[in-house]
């Protein structure tokens, strides 16, 4: 099947410079994971029709996702089936006055080329990463590929969305797990974008934020004061594990512009497909692109073409893909599923179709398509030599054929 894209190699003589640029200009502070270099030597060269198709599908998925979470906020009895922690379930009643127009909604849909066409594996609805990789990486790579250009910029889209909802020069708090450089790199990138556009930036841990009269207030020593927006890169389920977990209840019904608002957890759960028919929301795109998904209690244990996923898993970890995960890992996962099936989901495996380089190497690809307030906002590419995109996957920039060169598409 032709997906309207191919892999192009970064010229060997330029790769070293490219990698250094990626580390510092594209905030890639984790260029090595174990023995794996996570900066690909390739780029995805995509034709315009494919870019437009993926953007259109992501926009449809985004709208359907927002409709589902708004419907769920009114039918919270269904949220009990999503495998959410009890602390979050108790806080969900505060979502009843959620208004999407007062917040910024960021999502990333992960598309995979498969034997039967494009499919999605998930939406990263709560705290999607890959922002610098989608915004800066293509700009760094474009110099090596005439006729191809970066396609949209998710950081700019986020900035513009906030400019419509936040006062000029206001304080933007970037809330993250401060002990992790990998998370700080995401926040630093967005913070620099906001700082260059006149906003005051604040890098904060969750426990630096207090909620007073439904507004966020910063408590960092020497920098105390009001916060005008919250950009969170700290998973909502982690907030429930903090020592002063009740402090963050204020986030659920706050007036401070948030990205993402806690309502995102409702569609972050991989168990969403188990209840979506009860929401009275029309979701044809989701149903067409997501593989069949069932409660693990209803999956035949020996089924080789089904995989198990944690309800709140991220980065493709903790997934039992036979052939990609080790036998021991699969056994561990199956044991965990037997113990708490309500925190897992079973999904029919799709068969990823790899792209082949000029040297004959096969790589499996995942194109994460960002949306900001329902509009497509850029591509985040990752690739692996095996059909599972995990933490060892290499980041690969996606470049799109310029319109005047569209007859050269491969």
């Amino acid at each position: 099947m032709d997906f309207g894209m191919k892999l192009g190699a970064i010229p060997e003589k330029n790769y070293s410079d490219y990698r250094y640029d990626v580390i510092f200009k594209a905030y890639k502070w984790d260029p090595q994971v174990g023995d794996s270099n996570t900066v690909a030597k390739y780029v995805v060269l995509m034709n315009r029709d494919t870019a437009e198709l993926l953007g259109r599908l992501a926009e449809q998925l985004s709208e359907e996702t927002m409709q589902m979470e708004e419907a769920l906020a009114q039918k919270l009895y269904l949220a009990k089936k999503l495998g959410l922690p009890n602390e979050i379930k108790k806080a969900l009643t505060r979502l009843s006055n959620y208004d999407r127009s007062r917040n910024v909604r960021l999502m990333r849909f992960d598309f995979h080329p498969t034997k039967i066409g494009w499919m999605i594996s998930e939406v990263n609805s709560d705290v999607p990463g890959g922002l610098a990789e989608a915004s800066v990486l293509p700009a760094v790579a474009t110099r090596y590929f005439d006729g191809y250009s970066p396609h949209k910029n998710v950081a700019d889209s986020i900035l513009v969305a906030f400019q419509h909802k936040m006062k000029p020069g206001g304080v933007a708090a970037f809330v993250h797990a401060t002990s992790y450089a990998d998370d700080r790199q995401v926040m630093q990138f967005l913070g620099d974008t906001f700082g260059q556009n006149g906003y005051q930036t604040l890098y904060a841990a969750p426990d630096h934020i207090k909620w007073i009269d439904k507004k966020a207030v910063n408590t960092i020593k020497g920098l105390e004061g009001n916060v005008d927006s919250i950009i969170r890169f700290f998973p909502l389920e982690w907030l429930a594990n903090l020592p002063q977990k009740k402090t963050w209840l204020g986030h659920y019904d706050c007036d401070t512009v948030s990205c993402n608002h806690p309502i995102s957890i409702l569609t972050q759960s991989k168990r969403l497909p188990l209840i979506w028919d009860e929401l009275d929301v029309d979701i044809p795109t989701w149903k067409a692109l997501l593989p069949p998904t069932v409660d693990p209690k209803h999956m035949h244990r020996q089924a080789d073409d089904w995989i198990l996923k944690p309800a709140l898993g991220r980065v493709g970890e903790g997934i039992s893909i036979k052939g990609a995960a080790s036998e021991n890992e699969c056994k561990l996962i199956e044991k965990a599923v037997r113990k708490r099936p309500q925190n897992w989901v079973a999904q029919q495996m799709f068969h990823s179709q790899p792209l082949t380089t000029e040297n004959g190497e096969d790589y499996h690809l995942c194109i994460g398509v960002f949306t900001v307030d329902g509009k497509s906002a850029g591509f985040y590419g990752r690739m692996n030599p095996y059909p599972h995109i995990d933490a060892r996957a290499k980041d690969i920039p996606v470049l799109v054929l310029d319109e005047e060169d569209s007859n050269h598409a491969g």
Partner: protein
Amino acid sequence: MQGNIEAYRIWAPDDALWAQWAKPVLFADMPQKVNEKLHIPSLDWIAAADYSTAIIVDLPEHEGVLEGLALARIGYRPVPLYNGVCGPSLSSMIVPVKNIVHALCIGSDELTKMAIRPDAPPAFLLDSNRMSGFGKQAGKYDNRWCVFPQDMPSAAYLMNKGIRNVLVRTNSSHDDLRHILYRYEKQGITVLLCNGGTPKRVEVTKPSKFKSVIYRFSVIMGLTRNAAGGFGGQIPDATDRGYGIG
């Protein structure tokens, strides 16, 4: 005077065998370089580079950088693994990193004067204060950090490059490093400990949670993290550390 990319290139040149593990975090926001010299110590515990021995220097603050430069003088490749970030202000940070940044910055001048072979054995540099301090102080920026197995080469990779021994130069020990050393030892690498005197072979005690469901899943699901939003596990806590190489 170098910018951050130039300084990082000096510490992590692309033709050096072990440089790809160098962490860029503290190079991301390097200050203007001041005209200052570092006091690089002489080493009593080692005389020359041993190509079958990798070194892990786990010393407080910038002492690791200084010993790393001293090891470079005798033929080792210093590889900074500092992975803690700077906080919004110096006073708000739990782990002070300013002196490390400063030493890396000035140290790049020293390093350019040394001719280190591309296949030189590695000296990985860590800050033994990385988990020091109290985690949840009101208003403090928690920039404590851990080193994880995926921050370093695997035992298989080390052995494939001829490394048979790992020598830890430290005055303390941390559970996060013990997880790594235990893996190395289990796969046939000899672990040596040096607190400034003669290095001694040690047997690494099994770390808490090693290969338990909790640890396994925290590594699989939470702590193998990347910019794609690698979340889901536990947040490391200063109270969750142990001691006891040997």
